[in-house]
Each structure stands twice: as structure tokens, then as C-alpha cells.
């Protein structure tokens, strides 16, 4: 069975009196341990697609299956619980909690989402901070970090709950090219090391080449699927 499956998924938004067809008849299957990229211009539906897979939104029609579970009909609480158990997120603007240190940001999902007791948390947090190369900065606050460093912390936070899938919406958009490549490299490394599926969206053609599977989107439709780096 595929890790992610979308069947005839459409998503429409109401913007005042206008109905926007963000996604039209999407059919996707994504296997485990994949490194997938959604590419396309702004407004092509990349973020909407990620939101549906990430249980942050519901399709107008069609079915979405994540880890074999139909996620269409989740309540808010069920969706939040599912996300905490199976998904990790990396955001374009890093979205670290500014009042928490690097260590505490990575610790946050273990306390607030998975309720892991303190004696089991520390080793895990240090392990992931070491993996992303941020263990020396663990006591710093996000305001004291560069963009690339923040995104590395975000990667650690996304991975610390051992999710099957990490979703990254334009993770390199606010980074310079050098940092952007480093982050994508890191994600690739994490994919191999922790057997996690990474799905990220981008409109940067240089970054997209790093993906194994590339879905091209345009006007809410998948116009192309490339298998690049297996």
C-alpha cells in the first residue's frame, strides 16, 4: 500500500463571490522513504496540496489517504492528533516559537503533542540536534540564529516525533542559495538516516533538481511527474 494516496481530489475556495479552483482531479501516490517535490508557479496549488496531505485542510471532493487512513472526515481534534503522531512540518518562515530556546523548540512536540516523559526526551532531542548540527546552539533563542540555522532547528523539530512524513512548504524560500542547498541536503540526509518521506514544495528550479520525484503543477492540475534521482 502507498504511504500517501490522493484519489480524484479537488479543492475549491470561496473568495468573496468568486470560486477559486485550487486543485482539480488530483491523483497521486507516494511511497515510503520518498523525496518528493511539488513545483510550479505561485497559485499552482502546491501549498493546497501539502495542506491536504498534512490534514490541515479538507478536499472539496475526492479522498485523501495518509498511512492507509482516510483523513477526509477527521474532526479538528482527530486531525491534530493524527498530525502529531504521523506528520512533521517545516515552514517557509521557520515558525519557531520565539520564547523557547533551540532545545525547547525541538522538545515542544515531545511534551505538548506526544507527552513523552522527561527522562526519555533528552537523549532524543540531543540526537536530532546533533543530526542537524545545532547541538552547540541548543541554549540560544531563535532571534540569535541565522535563517539557515533556524531552518535546521525546524528540521529537527519536524523529525523528533519520528514521523512517517515530513511536509515542507517552500523551506528554502527565505534562504540564500548556499543555505538553501544545505537545508535540502540535510533533508535528504534525514530521509536516508531516519527513513522518512519528505515532501516539499518549491518554485526554485535549482532546488527542485535535488528531489527524486517531481510533480509539476499548473493551475491546480498535475501536468507532469518526473522520477529524477532514485
Amino acid at each position, binding site marked *: 500500500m502507498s504511504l500517501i494516496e490522493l484519489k480524484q481530489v479537488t479543492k475549491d475556495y470561496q473568495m468573496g463571490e468568486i470560486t477559486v479552483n485550487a486543485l482539480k482531479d488530483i491523483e497521486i501516490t507516494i511511497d515510503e522513504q520518498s523525496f518528493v517535490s511539488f513545483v510550479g508557479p505561485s497559485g499552482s496549488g502546491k501549498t493546497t496540496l501539502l495542506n491536504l496531505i498534512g490534514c490541515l485542510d479538507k478536499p472539496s471532493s475526492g479522498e485523501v489517504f495518509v498511512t492507509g487512513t482516510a483523513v477526509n472526515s477527521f474532526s479538528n481534534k482527530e486531525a491534530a492528533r493524527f498530525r502529531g503522531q504521523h506528520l512533521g512540518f517545516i*515552514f517557509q518562515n521557520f*515558525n519557531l*516559537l*520565539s*520564547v523557547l530556546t533551540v532545545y525547547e523548540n525541538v522538545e515542544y512536540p515531545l511534551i*505538548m503533542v506526544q507527552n513523552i516523559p522527561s527522562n526519555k526526551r533528552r537523549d532524543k532531542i540531543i540526537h536530532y540536534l546533533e543530526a542537524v548540527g545545532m547541538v552547540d546552539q541548543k541554549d540560544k533563542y531563535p532571534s540569535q540564529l541565522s535563517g539557515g540555522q533556524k531552518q535546521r532547528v525546524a528540521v529537527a523539530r519536524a523529525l523528533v516525533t519520528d514521523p512517517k512524513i515530513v511536509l515542507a512548504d517552500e523551506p528554502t524560500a527565505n534562504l540564500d542559495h548556499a543555505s538553501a542547498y544545505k537545508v535540502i541536503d540535510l533533508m535528504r540526509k534525514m530521509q536516508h538516516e531516519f527513513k522518512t518521506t519528505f515532501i516539499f514544495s518549491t518554485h526554485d528550479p535549482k532546488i527542485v533538481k535535488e528531489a527524486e520525484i517531481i510533480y509539476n503543477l499548473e493551475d491546480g492540475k498535475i501536468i507532469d511527474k518526473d522520477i529524477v534521482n532514485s
Partner: protein
Amino acid sequence: MKNIFKIAIRNLLRYKRRTLMTSLLIIIGIVMVIVFSGVSISFKNMMIGSITDSMLGHLQIHTKGYVSSIDNLPLHLNINEKGIKQLNNVFEKHNDVIEAYSYRIKFGAMLSNFQETTNIRLTAVHPEMENAACPRLVDRIKGDIQNPGTFIEQGKIIIPENLAKGLKLKAGDEVVLVANNKDGSVNGLSLEVSNVIEGLLGPSGRDGFLHIDDAKTLLRISGDEINEVSIRLKNPDDLVGDNKLLSDELSQFKNKQGMPVFEIHTWADLSPFSTIAAIVDLLIITVKIILISIVLISILNVMMMSVYERVSEIGTISAIGTLPSKILWLFIAEGFLLGIISTIIGNIIGVMALFIINISNIHFSFGRMKNILLETSIAPSDLITVSLIVILISVLSSLQPALKASKMQPVDALRHV
């Protein structure tokens, strides 16, 4: 829960100035309530104490119907020997609640200094009983009282200050009292002025004191007869309960027509100051309502701003799996902490303010009473009540913004710039 509070504290400290201003507003409100309550309650209790300890007692018993005619000081509604025995039995039975009682004969008379004559209201007492029931009565009597238990002797009279001034009387002067007894016949009695008594709340009092035996002579009463009993309770805080207890006890005594023989009243029923006391209580409640409003509005305002500023953050924590209930608790914890920290500081400053007032030896005058020392106090139960109110309102006013945050759709919140 510890981590929720940790994050809540960090978020409060994130906007230090705003948190400080809100907290300060709440602290000022709490200090206002504590100081106002401390001063008002102390003043009220002091006045009530003066009234009960030097004049009325906590409770009074009369023959049924006496109080409605009290301005006339009727003598046909006296309590006879049988009634006094019945009352004695009741008082003995309930000596766990009654500290002391005083038998009185109250009547009106004409007072003459052989040149001028005026009317006077007199309370005839056993001095020892009266001093036990109203121990601060002697504080109002000018001159040196060697033994409060014998503050009035037979053959002597204590006259009110304004009458003494009007008739130019002083201690040692001879006066004549002329009074009607209950049968309507007139009698006179010469007495020596022993002391002058100050009015409790101003110079308008025309109340004097004499020994009960002199009153019986003047009014031609043979045997034991009184028309008022003043009762001092062991615990004045149980006034209402003790009043009911004694009222139920007295209700067993009925006349030939089957009607109750006695009536009992509290000091509040008999003194117009009870209205002022009620107004003081109402003012204290008003100040508390103002405090509640301050807390409600300021915390609601801060929490709404906090939610609005952190929409994106709410979207993030929701996206990574934080349950709506935990998001709710995160924001309620902030309001709760703001309330409880402000409460603790406000209580400390409020109590310190009362302490400073007390050690400053501030004096004030009220009516006829001059140079009264302002002594404030506040019961721990009042502090706890105010604290609980503030904390409860802090939580309640955080509820709406917290619910709003917990119900946010992460996809909408993440789009927020």
C-alpha cells in the same frame, strides 16, 4: 501542566511593558479594595462597637408593642416580676451565648435646676449590670469614675452634656426630677448631679442616667419592674443566629389572649446607624465591582491582543499536533498567571498600606466624637475573597480569546501575516 505554565510565563515576559501595565492596573485595583475595605470596615465596626458597647447592647428585649411606642417611653408596657423571672430563666439557659444583660427602666421626666425646667429622657439602671452589658458607657461619662461598676449611685443623676450647658449645671449641683407614673400621678425627687455624659453621635442627646432604685421611688414602683433589657453577646458575629435563638425561646411566653409577651430586636433594628452601615457595605461591594471590571477589561484586552499577534504561532503549534484543548489551556494559563501574580503583589501592597496607615496615627473627628484614632484592619477571609474573585475573573476573561485561539483552523492561521 508545568510546561504550559512555563510557556505562559515566557509569553507574558515577551511583552514586558504590556504585561507590567496590565498587572499594575490590577494591583492598583486590589490595593484600592483592600485599603477602602480596611478603612470602611474598621470605621463601621468602631461605630457599631460604640453604639452596642456604650448604649444599646447587641440585643434588646421589651414587652410586645413597646418599640413601636418607644418615642413615648410608655410605662404601661413594663415587664413585671413574673416576666423578669421568665427572662432570668432564659438567660441562664443560654449563658453560653449571653455574656451579660442589664435591666432598665426608661422614662421621661422634667428636670429643673430651680430656675429653669426642661424635659429629659432617663435610663434607670443597676450600675453593675449596666457596666457589664455596656462596658464603654463609662467612657462617655466626663470626670473620674473610680469604679465603673458603681458609676451611678442612689441619690445621684448623670445628665447629658447639652442639658448641663443649657441649665448651667455641673457635678455637685442639685436638681429636681418630676415624672408621671403609669397611673398618671405626679411625683418629684431631688438628686445631685454626679457627672455629665457626652452624646454618642452629637450634641442632640437628651439621655441621662440614674439608679434604678431612685426611678422606682420616683415612679412609685413597688417590687421588680422594668421596661427594657439590654443584652451583650459573647460573640457579636453570631448576632442574627443568637437573635433567632432567643426569639424562639421567648416565643413560648404568651399572654391570656395567646399573643407573645416579649419582643426582641437587634441593635440594627433600633439604631439609624444600621442604614449607614448598610451603605458602607454597599460602597465596599461597589468598589469590588469596579475592581472586577478593571480586571475583566484589562485581561480581556491583553489576551485578545495576544491571540491576534500570535495567530501564525497558533497555526504552527496546531499544525505540529497540539490539541485544541492544550491551545486553550496555554492562553488560559497566561490569564491565570497574570491574575495570580497581580493578586499576590496587590495583597502585599494593600496590607502594607493598611499597616502604614495604622502606624501613622491618623486621627479624625466624626460628629461629636473628636480625635478618633484611625485603626484599620482587614480579615484574612476578605483578602482570600478578593483574591479568588480576581483570579476567577482573570480566568473567565481569558476564556473567550483562548476559545478563539483553540478553534482556529491551522490552514487559515498559517496564512496570517
